[in-house]
């Protein structure tokens, strides 16, 4: 669906992403983890054209990304940011209907179709926001706003979801709820998702593949079991970690061990 090959992204003289190759496949969640400044968000931004790579190719359904127009990209790739920008007050339903822009046949001036409204209604139910649809976005709680962002991304019907630290402002239960929405999309609609996150354990639970980045490079890729090994994580994050089996899922569980406790 989305293939990036040998991507390098440089800002002036600093190289943010170096030689990264990745491929998103239907039904799979891929998580990018790594220390701050590893180039995770920059990589994500390049995949929908927001940041132009210095070299390398990005193919969307086999076509070079830079040759496609904005609307055709937005019909296939949806982005969920850490926060909504919200420079002007809008209601939740108006916000979510924004996701239908790329499909509009009258993109200049015209109203949303019955179909658009049906889809908006469905995603609002899916994200449990139906009752809030008439409220203003800036009156919502952080968790509700994040669900609205997710709802808008789902409303685009894009088969590829790019999520940039979508859970950073959410409490424990909302983190899981949000990623369950992503999981469902991938399982039932053959969608593919790429999630940038700092939460390694959340990534281990929800992702099929992990990409571990350090200083712009994808240093390890593979299943959570392959990537989340104590030696690998210690080399990348420069902190001692304990990896054991998650008591419920059986997958890897990572606990950082602070230097103070190393003697124990």
């Amino acid at each position, binding site marked *: 669906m989305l293939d990036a090959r040998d991507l390098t992204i440089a800002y002036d003289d600093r190289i943010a992403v170096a030689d990264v190759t990745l491929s998103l496949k239907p039904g799979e969640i891929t998580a990018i983890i790594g220390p701050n400044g590893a180039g995770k968000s920059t990589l994500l931004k390049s995949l929908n054209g927001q940041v132009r790579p210095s070299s390398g190719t990005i193919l969307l359904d086999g076509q070079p990304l830079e040759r496609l127009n904005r609307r055709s990209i937005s019909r296939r790739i949806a982005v969920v940011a850490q926060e909504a920008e919200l420079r*002007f007050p809008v209601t939740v339903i108006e916000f979510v209907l924004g996701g239908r822009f790329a499909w509009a046949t009258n993109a200049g*001036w015209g109203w949303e179709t019955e179909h658009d409204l049906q889809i908006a209604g469905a995603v609002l139910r899916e994200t449990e926001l139906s009752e809030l649809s008439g409220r203003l976005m800036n009156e919502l709680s952080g968790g509700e706003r994040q669900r609205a962002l997710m709802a808008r991304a789902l409303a685009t019907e894009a088969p590829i979801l790019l999520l940039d630290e979508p859970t950073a402002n959410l409490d424990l239960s909302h983190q899981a709820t949000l990623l369950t929405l992503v999981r469902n999309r991938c399982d039932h609609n053959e969608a593919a998702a790429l999630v940038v996150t700092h939460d390694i354990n959340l990534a281990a639970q929800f992702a099929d593949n992990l990409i571990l980045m350090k200083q712009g490079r994808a240093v390890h890729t593979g299943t959570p079991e392959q990537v989340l090994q104590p030696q690998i994580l210690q080399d990348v994050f420069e902190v001692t970690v304990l990896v054991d089996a998650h008591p419920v899922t059986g997958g890897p569980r990572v606990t950082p061990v602070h230097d103070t406790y190393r003697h124990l």
Partner: protein
Amino acid sequence: MLPVTIAIAIAGALTLTLNARSLNLLMLGERDAFDLGVEVGRVRVVVFLVASLLVGSSVAASGSVGYVGLVVPHLARLSLGSDNRISIPAAALGGAVFVIVADTLARTVIAPRELPVGAITALIGAPLFIYLLKRA
């Protein structure tokens, strides 16, 4: 001169109205608009150019008539909501009506002599503008 101004006014108002949906998304923020499929760079250039042309040509034709542009778009937005599909054409229409009313007053209140239109628009516009500023 007048036919040129009329042509620019009609074409400009139409162009802005035909970018209303993109402008709605741009109100959220440029990054969001980009992600949702708006060609941010193109829309920005078009809107800047057209807005400048509209202002320039109308001032060239009529001289400076204050408070029309300051008050009418805000009133349109406050009364009809921030959806540009409605508020842009409403502002264009409302501005025209406002100026015609002001011009009629200017020609009639002390007839046969005439007041400058700008005096009338300022008389109505300035208090409204202060009211709008206090509300915001």
